């Protein structure tokens, strides 16, 4: 039996619904030794900003039960170096390249980044990272800084995707300058994910990517310091999977645009949960660190599952959750 694995997201047609998540796959070259990169449905780059970013102070990661915290702080070489040094390598792989972008200062940066990327044929889609917990978002600059008792200042790190209005504004302004497929990546650090997802849709996003990391913190009891230098960071891995599944299920019921599901996928079983809950495609993040070739193993695993259950097309599985 032939199984259908192709899916559509906006104008984007993927040969299979398995991609790799921003910030966890470098610029793909890091994984070349482990697998045939051409097998992937798509690759999402590390988030790019207009100017190079140094990133946060180390230590930047720590292990947690079934997961990890990170506060990389969007370290990246900036748009120009990305285009000159990373894109040529990515282009050679021959799979759709989704470029993740973020703004450091003003929402206008999203527009400028998009204008540049719009001109590049090989950029298959643009993912708006309006949900990074590790940098100050444009909005937070107007917020008062809260002084804590510790030696560090806790700033509130309001993200664009924590505010439906700001989400709408940013997506709308980017939508105006691009015809490429637009993916909006949302944060799970919200009370009602459907409200934000609806705002992204209303502003013209073709798709939503769910979820970015959940803000968390770990304490070293010997030093009584936070385990990572930035104090708080983004929690990822299987630890957040139930939260991700729940949010995808909620968003799927209300928002009729494709969802790229992620959060703790480490094998075929966990990947399948996402499709059933409503994801059209999935993205693998932290799982790549545990097993660098897990993404291609999952593609094979999905095929087997479909055959075994006599499902002709992956699309039949999407949102097939029973009461």
């Amino acid at each position, binding site marked *: 039996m032939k199984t259908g694995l192709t899916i559509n997201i906006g104008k984007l047609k993927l040969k299979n619904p398995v991609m790799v998540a921003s910030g966890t796959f470098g610029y793909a070259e890091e994984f070349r030794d*482990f697998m045939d990169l051409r097998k992937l449905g798509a690759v999402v780059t590390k988030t790019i900003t207009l100017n190079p970013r140094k990133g946060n102070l180390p230590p*930047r990661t720590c292990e947690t039960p079934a997961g990890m915290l990170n506060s990389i702080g969007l370290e990246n070489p900036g748009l120009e170096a990305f285009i000159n040094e990373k894109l040529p390598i990515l282009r050679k792989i021959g799979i759709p390249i989704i470029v993740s972008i973020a703004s450091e200062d003003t929402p206008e940066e999203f527009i400028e980044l998009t204008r540049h990327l719009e001109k590049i044929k090989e950029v298959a889609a643009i993912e708006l990272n309006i949900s990074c917990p590790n940098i100050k978002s444009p909005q937070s600059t107007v917020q008062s800084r809260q002084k804590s008792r510790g030696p560090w200042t806790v700033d509130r790190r309001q993200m664009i995707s924590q505010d439906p209005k700001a989400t709408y504004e940013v997506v709308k302004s980017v939508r105006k300058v691009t015809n490429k497929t637009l993916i909006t990546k949302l944060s799970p650090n919200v009370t009602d994910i459907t409200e934000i997802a609806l705002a992204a849709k209303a502003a013209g996003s073709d798709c939503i990517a769910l979820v970015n990391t959940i803000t968390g913190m770990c304490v070293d009891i010997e030093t009584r310091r936070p385990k990572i230098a930035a104090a708080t960071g983004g929690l990822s891995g299987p630890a957040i999977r139930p939260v991700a599944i729940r949010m995808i299920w909620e968003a799927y019921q209300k928002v009729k645009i494709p969802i790229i599901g992620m959060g703790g996928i480490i094998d075929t079983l966990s990947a399948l949960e996402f499709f059933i809950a409503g994801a059209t495609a999935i993205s693998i993040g932290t799982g790549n660190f545990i097993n660098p070739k897990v993404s291609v193993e999952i593609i094979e695993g999905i095929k087997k599952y479909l055959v075994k259950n006599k499902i002709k097309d992956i699309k039949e599985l999407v949102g097939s959750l029973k009461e």
Partner: protein
Amino acid sequence: MGKILQLKAKLIYNKRVSGRYLHLAVEAPKIANVAKPGQFIEVRVSDGLEPFLRRPFSVHSIRGGQIEILYEVFGRGTEVLSQRKPEESLDIIGPLGNGFDYKPQATGHRLQVLVAGGMGVAPLTFLAERLKKLQAPCLSGRQASSKLQALVLIGAKTKKEILCEKEFQNLGCEVKIATDDGSRGFKGYVSNLLIKVLSTVDCRQSTIYACGPKPMLKEIARVSKKYNIPAQISLEEHMACGIGACLGCVVNTKNGYQRVCKEGPVFDAEKIIW
């Protein structure tokens, strides 16, 4: 750079050396044949979710197709690793990182100074193995069999924690010991022993290779600058992926943040911003 491999390697032995320290060997010829001193492997200590991330360990020795690591039971991950049994298969990735830069010396008479603090001996024994290999053909006749032009300084808290003294001696290195409590050898830090050594032996054209805790390496960097002897130091930082993708394990250098797992773990001491 060579290919990085992920493979299921058969565990050959996992035995206690002393106290909290164990030797573990796996059969992994494809990695063993290409690994260089200073490089490391990432080990998935269990198939489950806990411990979650892989654990990095330096290549300690290579015998035929076997890779040996020397590790300390430190926390949960190494505890679980210490329970693993021969014949089991261990998921490893390697060889990773850059390794030491030890160029063959035309004369073979340049003194190499290896400085180890605590577990820092782990990569340096492998370096000594390779220095010996290099030097043998350089020296003529009878000389070749005798002494390696390598001086090894081992620092430990007490005499009980001194590791690999015999290994280094068997490779023909001269070994000097420093203990914090003076229970053996020089009383004090190994970096102070280094200062003492540098003021007594001819170290022109020497290279220092060091691995150990950060404060020790910082001190070595200072000494290296003061005596104008280049030092290559192997750094540790918490890692998530180990293959250069996550940007988690960076250290601050004169060239900006660099990844310990990719541009390191061995850095020129003068490049590091402490």
